[in-house]
């Protein structure tokens, strides 16, 4: 069974008298444990798709099922619960909470969203911080970290709830080339170890090169779906 099934997804924005068609009947399926990227020029609809799949926005038309749930029918509170239980987010600007340490940032969704007991929290965070190579930085605040370290912490935060799906909007845009490849490798390793589906929106050729399925978008419509084996990066 597909993790995500989108049928004829449409999204229109009204700006004054003008209606912008951000998505025009996009349909796709994404299987569990995929490493997928939506690719296309600015304004092609990549971020809009990610926002709708991530229950941050509602489509104007069409249907969308994520992890067996019709997410178009969820209200504000239900959407928040669904995100908290099934989706992890990685942002271009990392979006770590500045008053919390690395450990506390990773702990945040477990504590404030899922109410996981403290002992289990400690175990899960310890394992994940080791996995992303941030165990020695656990007590640092975001402003004491480099861009790559911030994104590693953000990946740990996205994965700590064991979501079925991680959405990453331009996750390497603010990273240098070497760090970007390291982060992509980390996400791929996490996918392999945890069977988590990663979906990106990007222009970044490094991610395009690493993604296993590419959805090419143009003017809000799906132009091409490209499946490939990916490439190993040393």
């Amino acid at each position, binding site marked *: 069974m597909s993790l995500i099934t989108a049928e004829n997804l449409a999204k229109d924005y009204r700006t004054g008298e003008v209606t912008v068609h951000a998505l025009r009947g996009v349909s796709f399926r994404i299987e569990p444990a995929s490493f997928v990227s939506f690719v296309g020029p600015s304004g092609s609809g990549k971020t809009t798709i990610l926002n709708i799949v991530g229950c941050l926005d509602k489509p104007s038309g069409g249907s969308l099922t994520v992890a067996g749930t019709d997410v178009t029918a969820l209200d504000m509170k239900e959407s*928040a*619960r669904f995100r*908290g239980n099934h*989706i992890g987010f990685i942002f271009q600007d990392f*979006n770590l*909470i500045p*008053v*919390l340490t690395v450990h506390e940032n990773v702990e945040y969704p477990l*504590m404030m969203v899922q109410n996981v007991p403290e002992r289990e929290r400690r175990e899960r965070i310890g394992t994940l911080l080791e996995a992303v190579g941030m165990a020695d930085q656990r007590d640092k605040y975001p402003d004491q970290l480099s861009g790559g370290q911030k994104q590693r912490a953000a990946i740990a*935060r996205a994965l700590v709830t064991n979501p079925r799906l991680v959405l990453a909007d331009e996750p390497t845009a603010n990273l240098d080339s070497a760090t970007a490849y390291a982060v992509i490798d980390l996400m791929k390793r996490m996918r392999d170890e945890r069977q988590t589906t990663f979906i990106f929106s990007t222009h970044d050729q490094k991610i395009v090169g690493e993604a296993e399925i590419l959805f090419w978008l143009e003017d809000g419509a799906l132009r091409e779906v490209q499946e490939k084996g990916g490439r190993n990066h040393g």
Partner: protein
Amino acid sequence: MVNLFKMAVRNLLRYRRRTLLTASLITIGVVFVLVFLSVSGSFKAMMIGQITDSMLGHLQIHRQGYVASIDNLPLNLNLKPPEVRKVSEALDGMPGVETYSPRIKFGGMFSNFTETTNIRLNGIIPEREFKTVPLLPSRISEGKKTLVKGEMLLPALLARGMNVKVGDPVVVVATNQDGSVNGKQFIVAGILEGVTGPGGRDGYIHLDDAVETLRMREPEISEIAVRLKDFGRLSDVHNRLSGLLAGEKNPQGKPLFEVHTWEALSPFFNVARMIDVMTFFIKLMLIAIVLISIMNVMIMAVYERVREIGTMAAIGTLPGRILSLFLFEGFCLGILGAVVGCIAGSLLLWILNLSRVTFDFGQQKGLVLAVSLRPEDLLTISVTVILVSVAASLQPAWKASRMEPIEALRHV
């Protein structure tokens, strides 16, 4: 809850200068209110003490209708001996009553043998009167601080106007209840200053002299002044005494007695009420300060952290938790301002007490301002500040909790 509290504190520490400024503003407000409350409260208590302890007593009991015509000093509304006995029995059995003093009040003509003027006289039993209004002797500015039969304590106004000195003989002429006129000679034993200044026409003579002057067969009492053990129980004793005496009826079936607290008998009660009203408005000002400063700082906090709010919401934080986080920040600011304000205010009042500030009230010179702070005032102000802080955070917190995550994440 603890984690929300921790996050709130850290967010406040993140903007240290702003937090410090807002907390300082609240602190200044709390200190101002505490000092005003204590100083005005102490002044009010002292003023009430002066009025009750040197003139009125805490409570007074009269025959029904006497107070309404008190300016005429109506002798026909005096209490007859059996009625006085009933009141005495009630007062003797009342646990809150310390002592009481019967008075015969009447108007008369006062003469120094060359000039004549009118006077109001209080026939008293000196020992009982001095216990009921213990500051009365301190009002005697010249002469001895006692009173025996044949002597008079003369108000300063009359003494100066009539050029009468201590030891001089004077005559009082008064009309008794059946209309006949009687006179009696007195020796001026002391000059009596008024409570609030040199005004007043109330002189004091012995109760037996009043009985003799008015040709009464037995003492007929105009009023009974009562002193309580604990002034704080005034209302309680008043209610119980009124209830006890309410059963006594006159031949028309109406209540025989009326019981009044000092509040109903002195115009200074209105001054005391004015102080209360001013205190109320000062408290309102504090509420306004807290409301505006907290609301301002929380609106700023929400505006500056829109993306952060978006992130929290995107991760799956429920709107209620986001609301709680911002309410906690307001709550912490309120606690900080209230606690620091209470400590600083208490310290300032302690220094004020140490510096022994003096002031004059009427004839009382060099009264030391003894300010005190009631724990319940500290508690009320602290709770008010904290509640208002939370209330002021409500709108910004609500706005934060209702933000669409996608809009918030796009915010620059």
